[in-house]
């Protein structure tokens, strides 16, 4: 068992789970799927610098070997942007649910108000 195998297989499993969830019909599941795929993408980008133990890219006079810092910089911003994207999509899903009363990704009027706390308000439009 090498780190490389663990890393690559984890990416594969995350992608598989992400694709499966992204193909589901409920917005929250799709958001979850995007989150899993984002993990996989960030890990993949990071892996392009290869896996290195105990050589953080913190410059020091006495150290001569470091891991590649560039993928790390790219992934760092990617993580933060992922948050921005996830937050936006979650809120978009929430707003779309509030507008239509359905959390189906295509906005279909699949009744689901009955099971949960949100019932159609009086002023709600069909």
């Amino acid at each position, binding site marked *: *068992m090498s*780190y*490389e195998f*663990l890393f690559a297989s984890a990416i*594969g*499993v*995350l*992608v*598989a*789970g992400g*694709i499966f969830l992204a*193909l*589901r019909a*409920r*917005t929250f*599941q*799709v958001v*979850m799927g995007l*989150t*899993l795929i984002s*993990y996989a993408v960030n890990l*993949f980008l990071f*892996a392009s610098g*290869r*896996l290195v*133990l105990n*050589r*953080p*890219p913190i*410059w020091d006079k006495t150290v001569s070997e*470091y*891991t590649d*810092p*560039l993928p*790390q*910089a790219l992934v*760092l911003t990617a*993580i*933060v*942007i992922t*948050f*921005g*994207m*996830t937050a*936006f999509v*979650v*809120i978009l*899903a*929430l707003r779309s*649910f*509030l507008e*239509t*009363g359905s959390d189906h990704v*295509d906005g279909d009027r699949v009744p689901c108000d009955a099971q*949960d706390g*949100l019932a*159609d*308000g*009086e002023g*709600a439009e069909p």
Partner: protein
Amino acid sequence: MAIAMTLLTLALLPFVAALAIALLHGAPRAVHSGIAGGASAAGLALLASLAAPALGGDVPLARWDWVPSLGLDLTLMVDPLGWMFGLLILGIGLLVVVFAHSYLYQNEDTGRFFASLMLFQGAMLGIVIAGNVLLLLVFWELTSLASFLLIGFWQHKAEARQGARMALAVTGGGGLALIGGMVLLGLIAGSFDLATILARGDIVRASPLYPLMLGLVLIGCFTKSAQFPFHFWLPHAMAAPTPVSAYLHSATMVKAGVFLLARLWPVLAGTELYTVTVTTVGLVTMIFGACVALFRHDLKSILAYSTISQLGMLVMLLGFSLEAAALAAVLHILNHAAFKAALFMSAGIVEHETGTRDIRRLGGLTKAMPVTAWIATLAAAAMAGLPPLGGFISKELMLYQTPKLVLAGLPWLLPVLATVGATFSVAYSLRFAAHLFAGKPREAEPFARAHDPSPAMWAAPALLTTLAVLLGLVPMLLAAPLVGAVTGAVTGSAPPEVELGLWHGVNLALILSMAAVAGGAVLLWRHAGLLALWERASLPDAKRMFELTLGLADRWTRKALVATHTPSLQRMLLASFAVTILLVIEGALTGGGVLTGTRPGLPANLPAIAAWTLLIAATLATALDSHNRLRALLFVSVIGLVVSLAFAVLSAPDLALTQISVEAVTVLLMLLALNLLPKQPPVISSASRKTRDAAIAIAGGLLVGGIAWAMLTRDPGPSIAAFHLANAKPGGGGTNVVNVILVDFRAYDTLGEIIVLGIAGLGIFALLDTAEVGASGARLRAWRADMPHSPERHPMMLVAASRIILPLTLAVGIYLFLRGHNQPGGGFIGALVVAIAFLVQYLAAGFDWSDARKPFGEHNLIGWGVLVAMATGLGAMALGAPFLTSWFDYFSLPLIGKFELASAMLFDTGVFLTVLGAVMLALAQLSHVATRAARAAGEDKP
């Protein structure tokens, strides 16, 4: 260089004024009109200082590089044609500002009005002094946008919104055609420089692309100048406040098309295609507009159609491709600007003082408002072309030219048709004056209210009418030198001898002119009968046709979209995933090679295998147990934790810190959203669909995992890492290379990223801030808490602990931020930790308590963050270095010792502020909506 500075000031002045007015939005009206008027007057003075060189043949010109690779230069040039139009734009602009100051009602948003007006002035002035055709296009589009704002100024009126939209659609659409035409023109001529293009008329006319280019340019000109069949937007644009109509729709914007025809005369004119097309369109427009104007009832609508007709006459004259006809056009541009602006203002005064613009309800106003009656009647007489007014001279010049062009092989056709047009012009002009001011009042109510306005309001139209009169009485003194110079500039040759006068002896033009006056008088006499005839004929309504066309375009676009995109996200995603997977398989099969490379692996230890097992289990659980959303969220947070650990182990401490803090924020956000979303929706996927999706998912997972494996088992190619590692300390002044890359080597990327993040935060705000109205608001109010709640709303222990933790967490966040340049940390991580510190307060003590004590606004944080980061970059530019060049040095202070100051730190502060603002905005807004919903639910309960 003095000329260059004058030109630049002239071009920028209106924009500066617009900005100043917009910034002083709350100031009293006099400030707004003062700035606008002052800027116009200053512009006039600058223009006057350029009169001698501009008209004397030594054209003032200045050029700055803008985008040299596109041939786009900032070239400004004031030749006689540009000078004359500049005079109209600034002079009438000043008068319109004076008029509007009195015209606008008490509670109007004068800041917005005058700012838009000055924006328009700047755009229009830019068109006439642009010396580069691409630059001209920029200003051209800007006039369309500014006029959209001005026509739609009264946003609460439906017809204002519709009129604005129609004007934008027509002139903006024409602008698109013009872009194509101008680019073609530049390519044919080999330059986008106006002076160069104008000198290459023969090359352009000989080009096989000439007809296409001409067609596109003409569409641009005809839409802007409201030529048939694009005329219909102009009457609807009359929903604008009257000063706007007086400015845009008489003297300036609608003349832009005429201006461009005159500007490009040396290149375009002279071919048969040009002559026939332009003359015919102008002639048809002239007759059509005059005919419709006679039967309209709204004063502004009459004037709008008369403008269409007069513009048609100008276009027709330019179409003749004769120097003498161009001269007539130039003179008539001056005349028309003077009398038409005066008439619009008079119509505005009548409406202002009587409360109506319907000519059928007015009449006999001479008694009530004598000053206005004089002004408007004289201006209308000038429009009718009665001697001894300015309009007479230009109309006679026009009629004199008509026999020189043979249309459709019939030598008499053009003179006759032009006379018909002139006859209708006389008729509608006389009707405007007669039905408004002569005779008896038709209705008592408007008449009883009517009175002359204060001189401040009639001063501007009075001045313009005086000019219209003087242009007839002393044309040689007032207009001849200017008209001569401008005609020379239009034709691109030496200025002709100009002979202007009222009396040229009895000739064909005089006879035709007299016939037109007599015919016009007859038409007015029989107006009632003709009107009945006109109204019985059912004529096509241009507005309905326009809306029908738009509706059709909308339907077809929708059809095309549905044909290429299915409206189902699931199906689209399925197709995307499947196609991608097939492409990768295809690539793998044709690429050949082995999957596993030769790079030796790192042996994994037991904790690593345990963490991996956890991650795999959590992923499968998330995918398969996603119906219980709360549980799925917990599984996802486990995955995030393992990913953070992986980063920590694999030499990426910065990533580990970022991931773990993002994880906390994300889970919090999802929890808040989940509170409002349904928790356990019914299962609606069929088993076969699930099997199909699972197959695709497994294929995708295998492929991506395989690619990752193939990559990880091979050595990387040559990397630029060595450069970053070697230069981080000596060049960037920091030992944390990742941070130095973020804030220094690749700071431009980071700047873009924080802007994206800020926009996402603002987008979330927009989505949630408006969630309380309509259907969404009703659902929020009907929301019922459906999760088990703790018996205590804000548990004492949590509240107490969170307050103790706050300063500690803040300190950690700031510490991580400060040390970021040299140790793991930095703006991103610091901001996330600080955000968590605040969010814990929201969690423990509730939204209201925390929000009331929050010392900052999230919007401000985002804005300031981006500004600080930008300012850091611009600071480098101010010091002569490229954008975002960093600077650092070492200092020492007693007690503290040696320390480092780096401009990158300032940039990182911008990152810190933006990230903090965006995260807080998203979460605080969401918790706010949830709180309000919960409160509403609580109030409903007994």
